[in-house]
């Protein structure tokens, strides 16, 4: 009994000594910042940064390979935190959200045949391009839904993918998963979208979908900011120029353009605060602002399209929200 305890005790002591020596001799130096950064990253391993996961990104950040803004789902807050740990400047981040550029539900864009294969968009595309008559449209089989690490995109009862803008982080996993390439990432503060990717002529589009872009150019002509141009016969919005004024949505004859702004307010100039610098009048695309230099300016509410360009241009914050602007679909400004 006693010798057994002694032998085992000795063996245990030797093994412990060995481990102690090994842990000192073969210690792997880990930059403590790696763990700190891992702590602030979202930890969902979505891969949107291009690295194998959050740990790999943390390593790359410490090694200076990745920019502090590399974590797309984390957005500005994470970028600031990472930059703080690394002691660098975070730079600008633009929050983006996924937008599905198709609104052709089965009632307006019917199927051409019955598809009985694997319920996945990428698999369905292998069968003659998929069941939908429009070769560009959302098939609603949910490849994007399964790819989303944030539960932010779902196929609705209308068999179209819908983005939950609250949950979407702009990681782009759905963009990659969609075989029709109808999802893209748009700055989150842009709220007017052309929801079609069919580049064909109007007649061909009409034959497959009643809400597709027919390339009529009315939106292009209406846009006061030159933000819409036609690529083949498909209108596209340049998010750099778009101000989400929503005029295009009011003239679109096929209701292809969606306007997510619920209420717009006409501009109202606080005459006491206005210094008469004329900057607002210069940026107004519809000449709705008038006034002499150094005198308070006024907004013509009949002309104002509530694009908020003047509000942003005013150096003294003298322009505020006025009367709500109510526009119906098809009511051309």
């Amino acid at each position, binding site marked *: 009994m006693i010798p057994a305890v002694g032998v085992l005790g000795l063996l245990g002591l030797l093994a412990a000594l060995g481990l102690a020596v090994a842990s000192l001799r073969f210690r792997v130096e880990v930059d403590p910042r790696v763990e700190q950064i891992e702590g602030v990253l979202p930890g969902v391993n979505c891969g949107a940064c291009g690295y194998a996961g959050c740990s790999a990104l943390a390593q790359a950040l410490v090694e200076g390979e990745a920019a502090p803004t590399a974590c797309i789902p984390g957005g500005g807050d994470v970028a600031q935190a990472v930059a703080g740990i690394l002691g660098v400047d975070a730079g600008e981040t633009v929050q983006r959200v996924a937008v599905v550029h198709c609104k052709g539900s089965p009632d307006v864009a019917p199927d051409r045949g019955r598809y009985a294969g*694997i319920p996945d968009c990428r698999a369905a595309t292998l*069968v*003659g391009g998929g069941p939908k008559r429009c*070769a560009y449209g959302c098939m609603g089989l949910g490849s994007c839904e399964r790819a989303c690490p944030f539960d932010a995109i779902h196929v609705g009862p209308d068999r179209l993918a819908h983005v939950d803008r609250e949950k979407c982080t702009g990681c782009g996993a759905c963009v990659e998963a969609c075989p029709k390439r109808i999802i893209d990432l748009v700055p989150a503060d842009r709220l007017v979208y052309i929801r079609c990717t069919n580049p064909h002529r109007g007649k061909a589009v009409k034959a497959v979908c009643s809400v597709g872009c027919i390339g009529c150019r009315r939106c292009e002509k209406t846009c006061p900011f030159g933000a819409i141009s036609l690529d083949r016969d498909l209108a596209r919005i340049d998010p750099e120029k778009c101000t989400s004024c929503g005029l295009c949505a009011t003239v679109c004859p096929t209701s292809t353009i969606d306007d997510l702004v619920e209420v717009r307010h006409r501009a109202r100039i606080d005459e006491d605060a206005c210094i008469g610098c004329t900057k607002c009048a210069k940026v107004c695309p519809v000449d709705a602002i008038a006034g002499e230099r150094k005198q308070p300016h006024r907004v013509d509410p009949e002309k104002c399209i509530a694009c908020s360009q003047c509000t942003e241009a005013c150096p003294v914050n003298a322009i505020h929200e006025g009367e709500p602007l109510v526009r119906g679909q098809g009511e051309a400004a």
Partner: protein
Amino acid sequence: MAARTFPLGGVHPPDQKHLSAAKPVEPAPLPDLLVVPLSQHIGAPARPVVKKGDRVLAGQAIGEAVGFVSVPVHAPTSGKVLRVEPAPHPLGPPQPAVVIEPDGEDRWADDLEPPTDPHGADPDEIRQRIQAAGIVGMGGATFPTHVKLSPPPEVKIDTVILNGVECEPYLTADHRLMLEEPDRILAGLRVILSVFGLDKGYIGIEENKPDAIELLGRKAREQGFAEVVPLAVKYPQGAEKQLIKAITGREVPSGQLPMAVGAVVQNVGTAAAIWDAVSAGRPLVERITTVTGEGVAEPRNLRVRIGTPVRHLIELAGGLRGEPGKLILGGPMMGIAHHDPDVPAVKGTSGVLLLPRDRVRTAPEGPCIRCGRCVDACPMGLAPTILRTLIAHEMVAEADEWNALDCIECGSCSFVCPAAIPLVQAIRYAKGRVMARRRKGG
């Protein structure tokens, strides 16, 4: 001695060839409109060289080849070009096509390449004439034929096989061609042999076509440069690798082409087209198509101008019988289901198959019960159920290790699956993912 065949897997679907096997080939009258797609082959689509309003003559090139793996497209008859724009395409979404209104005169271009001495021509000249004639594999795969006849210099081809197996159920186009025009086929074989400097080739025919075996066998013996090999009836006997294995005993290694074992396989219809191109400079503007199935009134074998809408062919076969369930271009095992009867017949359209509603299986997909029938049926020795499970979990690297890319998409696994699992579709999807991953260097 039992007839030769391939050793692994294979299935015996009901062949239904009696519907059309005894019907001689008849020329299909020209339709009101021909829709000639610019992409009827694997490789770069042809570039259109005609425009709206142009008058074209039969055999005149209307699209030119873009690069080596590409072939030109020719006007199937004389007439007026109505438009050049996307039109229904047998592979799915609309693709650019030249729409021709036939003038009914069927005048041929007289600047076709003059006849040459087909058996004395230089191999390069033969390949050039084959490409200029727009010839592609007419068994259905539509790979440009001149590319198949241009192995790299270090590869020695010692075996040429003509594929007269026609193992797809329902189809009888190759069967009728072998019975009615054996001399064109044999002459084409002789041209192919001359490209490789060989003096003997093989013709593989399934034993369910004894009349073709007898006729071609006799002619081959008379002419001395061909041997007809009768093959056991088993699907997919006509698949390239299975055919090579059955005739030569050689196995094409995983991931490689038949040329790796010194073999070149051409469809019998392709051989006939090669003869027309080399001997007379005649481009590929028509083919034999079987219009068949229990869903048409009178199944027929038709000589069809490329671009003829399928609707026209169905009318020529007496129209619909019963409620249509499924329209398939090609055979039931590997053909492509289509929704639109305005889709045109193209160079690879060996059959137009209409199944009535009660012959279309629409059982919902059930769970895999691990019965292993798909594994037994696979002629490539793959494990379809495992590949399907792997790719359902996006395990692309593992699907690659399980040799997804070796799948020839013959459909045997889907045919035998008692749970109606779309196995081929899953593996096709897996192949796409594996290739994308390899391109990324993953």
